[in-house]
């Protein structure tokens, strides 16, 4: 399964090679032109017919993770975070370091050895370290270097009613959607971008949009989903299994009402479940894209994912398929002259 390969690949922001290679290999035969820009974005172009708009479709390749800061005398690895990770989730997680995928465990004092105060205080990043089983600094240095990237080590599992558990569903789910979309034929020109460095500030999308200069853009994401029993409904953001979610507003973007309306109608007319993502903090590549040059109308269609930015996020394959299908039908339904800039 392609989604399994995508989530098992490691691509912490700034180090997207593994993911990029899978994507290029997967889409090469289906697009007219493919290139990697100076920041590392993969740009795939499918030519369109005359009089139809150019549409930028974006999904980010990078994931949150860590980076090696130093190795101490005992051979334990100190690290910094890359992107937004809740420090409290780190203890006891398995990780993979560097190109050679060196196994490591984020260690901490066993419960027996903690005093009362320690038990009540979540561990801070400065107290945490990665144990790679090395006996000394010298031994550790043979396996790991400063600046090596660290990714969560987490199996891709299918479980429950058509659900997936994996790491990096934010945003390999979006990459999966975009890859699939590039395998279809359209009248519109498709400017597909797999962006880098979204998790540390929408950086890849900024330069990609500058070059693309499209009529409008759609961002595909794995987004917040907090539909848990104790959470009041007005804080669910999205609900698992209720279809892909269209963004209304987040910290960076007020999304195009026209695009939202058309995409929503497409789903409803084709009996595909769709929901609106409740306005909430957070952001995605649209934040940079919509403010590029003279402005680019944007929509974001996302697969709801519980526990994003952790090693174990959960999504529904039904929402994933719904996202692909809705986008496909919407893009194929665009008529000559629609959305074309003056």
């Amino acid at each position, binding site marked *: 399964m392609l989604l399994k390969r995508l989530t098992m690949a490691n691509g912490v922001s700034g180090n997207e090679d593994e993911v990029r290679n899978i994507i290029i290999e997967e889409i090469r035969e289906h697009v007219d032109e493919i290139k990697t820009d100076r920041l590392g974005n993969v740009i795939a172009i499918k030519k369109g017919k005359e009089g139809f708009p150019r549409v930028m479709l974006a999904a980010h390749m990078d994931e949150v993770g860590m980076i090696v800061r130093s190795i101490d005398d005992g051979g334990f690895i100190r690290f910094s975070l890359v992107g937004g990770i809740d420090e409290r989730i780190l203890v006891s997680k398995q990780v993979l370091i560097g190109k050679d995928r060196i196994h490591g465990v984020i260690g901490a004092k066993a419960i027996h050895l903690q005093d009362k105060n320690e038990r009540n205080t979540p561990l801070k990043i400065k107290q945490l370290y990665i144990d790679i089983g090395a006996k000394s600094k010298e031994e550790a240095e043979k396996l790991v270097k400063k600046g090596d990237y660290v990714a969560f080590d987490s199996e891709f599992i299918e479980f429950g009613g058509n659900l997936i558990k994996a790491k990096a569903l934010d945003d390999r789910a979006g990459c999966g959607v975009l890859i699939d979309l590039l395998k279809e034929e359209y009248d519109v020109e498709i400017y597909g971008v797999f962006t880098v460095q979204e998790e540390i500030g929408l950086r890849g999308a900024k330069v990609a949009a500058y070059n693309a200069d499209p009529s409008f853009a759609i961002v595909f994401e794995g987004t917040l989903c907090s539909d848990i029993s104790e959470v009041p*409904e*007005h*804080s*669910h953001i999205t609900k698992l299994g209720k279809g892909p979610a269209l963004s*209304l*507003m987040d910290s*960076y973007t*007020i999304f195009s*009402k026209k695009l*939202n309306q058309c995409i929503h109608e497409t789903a409803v007319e084709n009996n595909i479940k769709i929901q*609106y993502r*409740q*306005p*909430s903090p957070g952001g995605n590549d649209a934040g940079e894209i*919509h*403010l*590029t*040059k*003279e*402005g*680019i*109308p944007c929509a974001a269609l996302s697969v709801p994912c519980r526990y994003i930015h952790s090693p174990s996020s959960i999504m529904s394959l039904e929402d994933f398929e719904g996202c692909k299908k809705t986008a496909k039908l919407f893009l194929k339904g665009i008529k000559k002259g629609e959305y074309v*800039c003056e």
Partner: protein
Amino acid sequence: MNKINAELLKKLLMTFGPSGNEEKIRKVIKEEIQEFADEIKVDALGNLIAIKKGKGKRIMVASHMDEIGIMVTNVDDDGFLRFTNIGGVSPFMSLGQKVIFDDETIGVIGMEKLDDIKDLKLNKMFIDVGLPSKEEVIKKINVGDVASFYSPFIYQNECIISKTLDDRIGCFVAIEALKKLKDTPNEIYFVFTVQEEVGLRGAKTAAYGINPDLGIAIDVTLTGDTPKAEVMDVGLGKGAAIKVKDRSIIVSPKVKDLITEVAVDNEIPFQYEILDAGGTDSGAIHLSRSGIPSGVISIPCRYVHSPSEMVYISDVINSIKLLIKVLEKEKINI
């Protein structure tokens, strides 16, 4: 006595337009200025751009059409609406206020029972539109719908009290300047921007498109003239404020001096403004492309981002005069 076109000002202030939903206010402004501009266009984000042709410097005048407001995030079974802020909305300022939706439905903002009012946050608050069930409410209002604050327009003594003086008073100043401006040696782009309240967004794309030689934003500024206010040397009735600095910009000294010189030469009362919090469209304009010298003419305003903002008529009139004289200036050396 000072006179302004109160009818137009009232219309501007009472027209709906939370950030991202500027359709109605754009239409009102467009109709008002149509016959005075050589060319009018609307860009991809919705900025309204009115051009007055000329051969000198290209000057972008930015005043934002959008206002703060709220967006509905959920409708519960009993028909209460949960909401989030659009722009800087204080929970304390909102409590007990009324909001108005695009379809003119009015709602009241209430709160859950709290043991300590200090815990008041927007997610503990709701809007009540006086309908008994979700079923009834969603016929009119749904998730994603937006509302602005609702409060009357008051013209009392020598001041205006209203919602949304931030920044419809800036739009008013720009419109009046455009109307009174006869022949100008410069090429002026009057831009009524969108989405300023959520991050100077409209001004960013408009400035890129126009690529002006000089940018001037027209917006309200805070004052320091109320009891135990934070120290700030701006007061109501003391003239147009010429910005020196805020969070978004350090005004180019050349631009500050240019506006000051015009004010002095024309005996227009002015004060300098150094604003600790907040920013305005010039923050986005001055960083566009390879950099655009930019400044701001501010209208002093008390109680900004409340449903009862207050400005003095005399400051508004002086701001209009100052803007016109700057735009009419020949041989601007920037």
